[in-house]
């Protein structure tokens, strides 16, 4: 789903089958990165300007190391940022996601 609104926000959401979701270092590069790039492109095409703020929400899945309510939403935020997708921030999101699910992720 791609959603854009008058207030300058663009959001991309996708549902991934459990069997296809391998939560490893490559997850954000293969899933979150393309979504971020698409949202960024839409914002820029709509002439969004100023600082950029990114929010990544993640829900669903079974994670034995971090049991929680079924409707729990992981929220990861970044900003203010410049336009475009920053690989360092993307990698940082990946580490944050892994840690939030109980998997260690060392700093580069």
């Amino acid at each position, binding site marked *: *789903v791609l*959603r854009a*609104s008058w*207030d*300058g*926000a*663009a*959001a*991309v*959401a*996708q*549902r*991934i*089958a*459990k*069997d296809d*979701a391998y*939560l490893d270092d490559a997850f954000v590069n293969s*899933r*979150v990165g393309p*979504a*971020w790039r698409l*949202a*960024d492109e839409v*914002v820029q095409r*709509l002439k*969004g300007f*100023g*600082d*950029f*703020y*990114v*929010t*990544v*929400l*993640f*829900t*669903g*899945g*079974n994670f034995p190391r*971090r049991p929680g*309510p*079924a409707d*729990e*939403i*992981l*929220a*990861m*935020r*970044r*900003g*203010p940022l*410049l336009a475009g997708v920053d690989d360092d921030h993307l990698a*940082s999101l990946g580490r*944050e*996601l*892994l*840690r*939030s699910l109980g998997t260690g992720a060392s*700093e580069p």
Partner: protein
Amino acid sequence: MTIFGPGWADLTLQDVQSYLNDAEDEPLLWEAKGTRLDKNEVRTQVCGFANSHEGGYLILGADKTDDGWKANGVAFDGEPITWLSDVIGDPERGVRPRPDFDIHAWPADNGHVAVIRVRSTSTPPCIANGTVYERLPGKTPPVRDPVRLASLFGRGDEARKLAEAIAYRAAKLALDAVTKDEDTQEEEREEGGRAPSGPSGSRWAWRRQATPPTLPADCSKTTSPPRTGNTSATCQTGCRTAGARGPVRSSGPRPRSYGDAS
């Protein structure tokens, strides 16, 4: 539209000169510098416009003579647009946070005439040369009043909160959309008599077990989403406002944030 008449993309040197022919002293929205280029002066002016509510235009290569304003140009140390971008975006002494700006430059008698369009920053204050500047009619002085400085910070904080709230809301709506879309497809499959299979099937099996039959009919609206699929939403906002609207209050509980933001 610009203060010069035509739109920014169509602006020409003739438009600038035509505007200057009728102009008097520099008001709030523009400033002209003519005979000498000073990096700190450029940063100061850009910083002042960025901290204002409406932004403004810095004209380089225009000077006031006895016959009025003349856009005769000034010698740049290199290609004007590149030079100006480097001066404003200098990582150490440039204007930070970098405001949204654009530059036009045209050849003129004494070098080039350049116009920098600076938009009001959404997250003030901007700082340049270690100082916060503000635009007043005809001048760009440092901000010396603590109350004025606090106001700038307040406007920036408010804009950041607003942008974060907008980003979260947009991501949540997109997340809800993929969830509902999947639910609708599942309902249609079940109504069609086909047996669900795979992860989706187990999700519905889980949901049926989890929903007591005595609950009201509309209870399904509050049923928790499945745990057998992974859903992610990414949102990016271009913060378009300068805090013109009031603070946004979240309608629900603030989501927990996990892990350290490394």
